Structures are given as structure tokens and as C-alpha cells.
């Protein structure tokens, strides 16, 4: 690939109520930040299915950002805690598969925190730039299986954690 500055491609899942609005606010306040995050709106960070993250990696994303309301401020009361649990699990599992921690990040940003979100994005882009391309999409066959395996682990894990009589 080209020898110029590596511009990572990051998919960002932002919840409708806080973090998406934080990005809106960053816009109206003209807080410049790195253009690498392509935002996908979900109603809540709790909607982020681990398979969304896998899908993004498998399609060539270099990193994935999940952003939601601060703990205790989720529009749906407490769903971001569920997102948080999934996130840690996902990050652990990905790490075991050789995906650096910085490639999957969880950020809390309230609707008033355009500045904070912009800073978090800049920081993340810097970190991923250092790491270079992930290149999971390079080898389809093999990674397809790897991703499937990952997904299975994550789901299993979730089941184990979330069934409370």
C-alpha cells in the first residue's frame, strides 16, 4: 500500500441519545477532529452486537469505537452497563486473537461532551495510526473462520454471564 501517512478506517457505533448528540455538538461548536471515524447510529450502546464489531473488522476496519452515555445516564436506564460487559469480554477475546486493545475502544460521552468525544477520537486515531493497518480482511478464508470462532466464544461467554435465574 502507499507509503503516505496511514489513515485508519474506524467504524464508530454511537448511541442515539448521548454520544451521537455529542458528535452533533462537536459539529455545531466546530471542534475539529480526525476524519477517520465513520459513524453508525444505534439507539443505545446496548444494541451493539459483538457481531457488528466482527463484521467491521472482517470488512477491513482498522478499529472500532463504541460510544454511549455515561454509566447511570443511559437513556434506557442501564443498558450501557451491558454494553460495558460485552465490551470488556470482546476486547479480551480479541486480544487473545492478536488484536491490540487500542483497536476496540469504549468511550462515554454525554450530549454535552462534544469536546471530550472529539479528543477521544483524536487519541484513538493516533493510537491506531501507530499500530498500522489491521489487515484482517487480507485473507478471507482463514479470517472468516477465525471470526466465526470468535463470535461463538463471545456468545457463549455472554450466555454464561447473563443468565441470572
Amino acid at each position, binding site marked *: *500500500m502507499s507509503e503516505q501517512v496511514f*489513515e485508519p*478506517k474506524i467504524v464508530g457505533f454511537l448511541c442515539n*441519545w448521548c454520544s*451521537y*448528540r455529542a*458528535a*452533533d*455538538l462537536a*459539529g*455545531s461548536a*466546530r*471542534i*475539529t*477532529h480526525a*476524519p*477517520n471515524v*465513520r*459513524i*453508525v*447510529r444505534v*439507539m*443505545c450502546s*446496548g*444494541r451493539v*452486537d459483538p*457481531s*457488528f464489531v466482527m*463484521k*467491521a473488522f*472482517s*470488512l*477491513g*476496519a482498522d478499529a472500532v469505537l463504541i460510544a454511549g*452515555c*455515561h454509566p*447511570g*445516564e*443511559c*437513556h*434506557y*436506564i*442501564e*443498558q450501557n452497563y*451491558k*454494553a460495558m460487559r*460485552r465490551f470488556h469480554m470482546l476486547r479480551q477475546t480479541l486480544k487473545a486473537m492478536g488484536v491490540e486493545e487500542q483497536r476496540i475502544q469504549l468511550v462515554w460521552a454525554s*450530549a454535552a461532551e462534544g469536546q471530550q468525544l*472529539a479528543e477521544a477520537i483524536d487519541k484513538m486515531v493516533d493510537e491506531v495510526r501507530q499500530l498500522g493497518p489491521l489487515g484482517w480482511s487480507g485473507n*478471507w478464508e482463514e*479470517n*472468516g473462520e477465525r*471470526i*466465526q470462532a470468535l*463470535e461463538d466464544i463471545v456468545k457463549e461467554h*455472554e*450466555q454464561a454471564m*447473563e*443468565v*441470572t435465574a
Partner: protein
Amino acid sequence: MAEKIGVYVCHCGSNIAGKVDVEEIAQWAGENLDDVAVSRDYKFMCSSLGQQMIEDDIKKEKLTRVVVGACSPHLHEKTFRRACSNAGMNPYLMDLTNIREHCSWVHKDRSLATEKARALISAAVQRVKHQEPLEPMYVDVNPATLVIGGGIAGLQATLELADAGYHVYLVERLPSIGGHMAQFDKTFPTLDCSACILTPKMSEAGQHENVTLLTYAELEEVSGSVGSFKVKIRQKSRCVDYDACTGCGICVEKCPRKVLDTEFEAGMGNRKAIYMPFPQAVPRVPVIDQDSCIWFERQKCRACEKLCPTDAIKFDQEDELIDIEVGNIIIATGWKPFDSKKIPQYGYGRLANVYTSMEFERLCNAAGPTNGKIVMRDGKTVPKSIAIVHCVGSRDDRHNPYCSGICCMAALKFGHLVLEKTDAEVYSFYIDMRTNQKNYEEFYQRLLGEGMRFVRGKVSEVTDAARMPTEQGKLIVQCEDTLIGRQQRYPVDMVILMGALEPQEDARELGLKCGISCSMEGWYTERHPKLDPVATMTDGVFVAGTCQGPKDIPASVAQGAAAAARVAGMITKGKVMIEPIVASINEQACSGCKICNNMCPYNAIEFIEETETSRVITALCKGCGTCVAACPAGVITGAHFNNKQIFAEIEGALWDALQPAAESSSQAETVPASAS
């Protein structure tokens, strides 16, 4: 059948076009993205001409889907949905992608911004193909309203609605309505007598034909949503028959058990075991405090019962659960005072003549325990000098970072009352004097004229350890006077701590019941801090007064009225639209694992024992999608945010990521999209 998609890229004047090559993107989309039948750019898509363009295309070109690349959906999603509806297309077949706030306004480099905008448009085009027509749901608005909290904010909201002809249930947890304002003597800056302006409103609410007063009651549980909430109220046992009691007060008079009144009198006075918190209480029905009543303690006494002329005393009365149905809820639960003991160096609780501001309110109140005489704890000595310490627990990172907003003015009010009633010297120890409302600065100027002394600095300590003969028997306030840059010691007789306004202890819990959230500190979060200050993120739930953040009485009243106006608007309209963004379970495929059952904070998922499968109760689901993400069988669908749609969106957003590998073949098969 292939879709026919119309793509519309907005210039927004130069707001977008200044950083993003909109014409090129529109052309690219038309030429490169599958199923795009029309692709245009336009100066202002949201203008009537822009909308007309979309409508005409839908009709002429028989478009089946529309993508608009413009501003945030929070701004114009409704606009473009309406345009689609007007042209006969289901509004949920439109996707608005944000290339302004999220792109042109925040990126410096034109080519990178253009690339991002291109990816966002591509994502929207892929997504929109999978969007499904949805029918908005309408629910009738129950014209009754629940107001929680009977302070001035809640009272205002109640009366506005009741006067407009709508029924209000006013729930107050204490035995009387009135809130903190009932405890004050005078109110700044006009110095009206608090009781004179408050009690007429209290009795109006008490007598209003449209108001059901539920005092000594608390919210137990809320279910349902905007338009039709079902609410359970716990009416705590008063041990007094509400209807039989005439409020004569003989029981209170004859009750032999006196206890310290830590609520209304802030610990400055006593009350009986059976009591009305204050003479103008509404309703005039006493309650028995079961923790101090002799009967509950050792089965003796029953004096009140014997003497009650209407046999209203009922020792065996139990809590009662009352079910009500309302269309909207207004939360006006106010504030609680900072616990000044948390700053031990100020000596509250240890040094007798250190007072909290609420104690001092009672002390100078004509109806208070000293009949308004300002005397020290011994009950007779009139202080010769008083120090008022500002920002106690406010603007202090160890306690609360925020400014409580009202303490400077309350301190000035105290200064005035002391100067009016005594010959004492009054010192104010302030960090910054904050008097930024109507007539507030004038009030400050007035106090400067009246001889109140002002020392700029944060008090470091209040002590009784004298270093000089002049300090003997005094409280010494140690403070750096930052205007002269010197540490000073001020010997005084009395110290008043202007404690912070804090959120109620149970604010978070109550918020949870009503489905609204709090800031880190515990103040309720409004929908928009500037443009929507009394609505919340939960439709049908409004906030008013200090529960949303520290404020004075005028602002609390304004919010109470504003919340009432919002509710009245909903009632007048009669119906509310609710977004059909809800989850549903394919019961044929559900394995009955019950994982989703525990996922839902609204208990919207029920388990059907016969079929051993789960089902979403549509009316309760708020559409967060957490259960959708959690179902291991992938059989829950989140309308408008289903897996197919989001996978497609991700794929579109990364359209360029796989280009170099040039293996465009069977990507979609790689990750088996668990059935949407």
C-alpha cells in the same frame, strides 16, 4: 426486486459544500452505487424547493427509497420523512445521513472530508435498501397528570394544569405540601414574606376540585409510557382517618410526647409525636410518627384517640397502595441541604454557635421556635457579630463542583435580617459574589449600603481556640482576605454556613422508576440544556424546579409553569405519536433460553410458559435493542435497527476498505448474518 433509490446531497449553502465535494459525490453515487436511480446535489435540501424535488422524483421516477446526505437526523429527519410521506412513500424508507455536524464542520482536509462523506452516503445507500415500511403508533393521552413533589415548582405546575381544567394527582412525601419555601421567613430580593405568597397557593391546591392531594405518600412503581402511564402510589399510614379528621388539633395539643423536629424546624424546635409540620399545613390532617409515639413504643397512652372528637385516630391503619393512570408525569422533587458536618474544620455539630443556613432560616422566622428573635443556642444572648460563610460544599472539588446559585443571595438576605433585627456586625466571607438575576445586584448594593461587611476569601477554619484576649469565648473565623493578600482572624459570636443545594438522596432511584437519568451529581437531565429545559429524554416525563439543578424560586416557578404548558399541549392534542422502533421475537425460532428476559429494564419481555418462548410486550418496549444484541439465537428483531440494516450500513461505510484486495466476491457470506 431491485430498489430504486434517490440520493440527495445537500450543500447547506457553503456549510457542507465548503469542505465536501458534494457535486462529485452525487455524481459518483449515481454512477457507482447499485440501485441508485437518481442522484442529485442541491443548495438547500431542507428548503421547500429541496423537499419538492424529492417529492417530484418519488412520484416521477417511482423511487422506492430515499437517502439524504445533509445535517443531523436530530434536526431534519422529520422534515425529510414528511416529504416522503407527502409523495406517498412510507417515511421509514428514508435515511438521513449526517455529513455536516459529523463531517464538513469538523474536518480540516477537504479530500479527507469528502472521502468520509462518500463513505457515509455509501453506508446510507446500503442501509436504506433493507429498511422496512413502519407504521407510526399513536396512543391517546390520558388527560390526568401526576406531579411528584409539592414544593413551589410542583405547586405551580399543579395549579396551572388544574386551572386549565385537567386533573392532577399531586404526590408529596412529607405530611404537608409547601417544600422548602414554607420554612423561609422572607424571600430575596424583594423580601416578601414567604408564607404570605406561598400559603395561598397551598390552600388553593388543597381545595381545588381538579387536584387529588396525596401527601405522606410516595411513588412505588411506574409502568407504561407517554400518554398512558400506570402508577402505583404508596400512601403511608398516618394513623389518622383522613376523611374523619377535621383538623381541630386537639390530638396534637394533648399528645404528651415531645420530640426534636429535624424536618420542618431543621432541629431548632420540637414537635409532638402526632403533628402537623406547621400551622398552615395543607392538608390539615396530622400524622402519627410511629417512631416516637408512646403507643408504638410500649403500648401505653392513646391520649389522642381518647380525645379526638371525631374518632379519627386509627392505630391499626396500614399503608395503602393506590393505582392511578395518567398521561404525563412532572417531577418536581427539589433539593436537600448539604451536610455541613462533612467539613469538620467549620465546626458544625461541635461548636454550638455554628448554624446551617436552614437552621438560621428557622431562627429568624417570625413563626419559628424563637418567634424570629435572633439569639444564640442558649436561647437568650443576642449575638454581637455574625459571620456568614459562602460556598460551603459548593464550588469545592471535594464535595460539589457546581455553584448552588442561591447562597450569595440568601446570605445577603440573612445579612439584611440581622441588621434589621439586631445591632450585630455581619461579615460575609465570599469567593465571588454571584447576583446575576433581576434586582439581585441592586440587593447587593443595598446591603453594602446597610453596612454588611464583605471579606473576599475562602474560610479555612472556624475554631474556638483563642490566641488573644479579644478572642476569648468567641468563634474565630480564619480566612485569607484575598483583596489584601493577608491571613486574618475574625472573632465572632455566631457563624452561619451557607450549605450547598444537593440532589435528593433518592433522586436516582426515582429517576429510574420514571425512566429518566441524572447527571453525575444527581440532578435530572433535561432533553436539551438550552432549547428543551423541562422535557426529558423520556416522552411524557418532565422535570421542574431544583431537582433539575440548583435555582431560585422565580426560576423554579417558571419551570413549573413551563412543564405544565408542555403537558397541557399534549393533552390538547389528544394523541401522541410514538416511534415504531420496538423489538419483536420470532417465537417459532425462540429457544426459550430466557436470556433476553433479564436484559430488559422495562420488563417488556414476558415468558410464555405454554410454548416456552419469550415475547416482547410492544407497549412496554422502548426500543433500545439490547435484547436484540443479546439473543444467542438471533431471533429478536429491532425494528429500523435490525441486523441486516446495520450490517449493510457497516459494509457501505467500509466500501473502500476492501478495494485494494480486489476480492469483491462473496463478502456478505463471510459473517453469517444471524437472521435479522
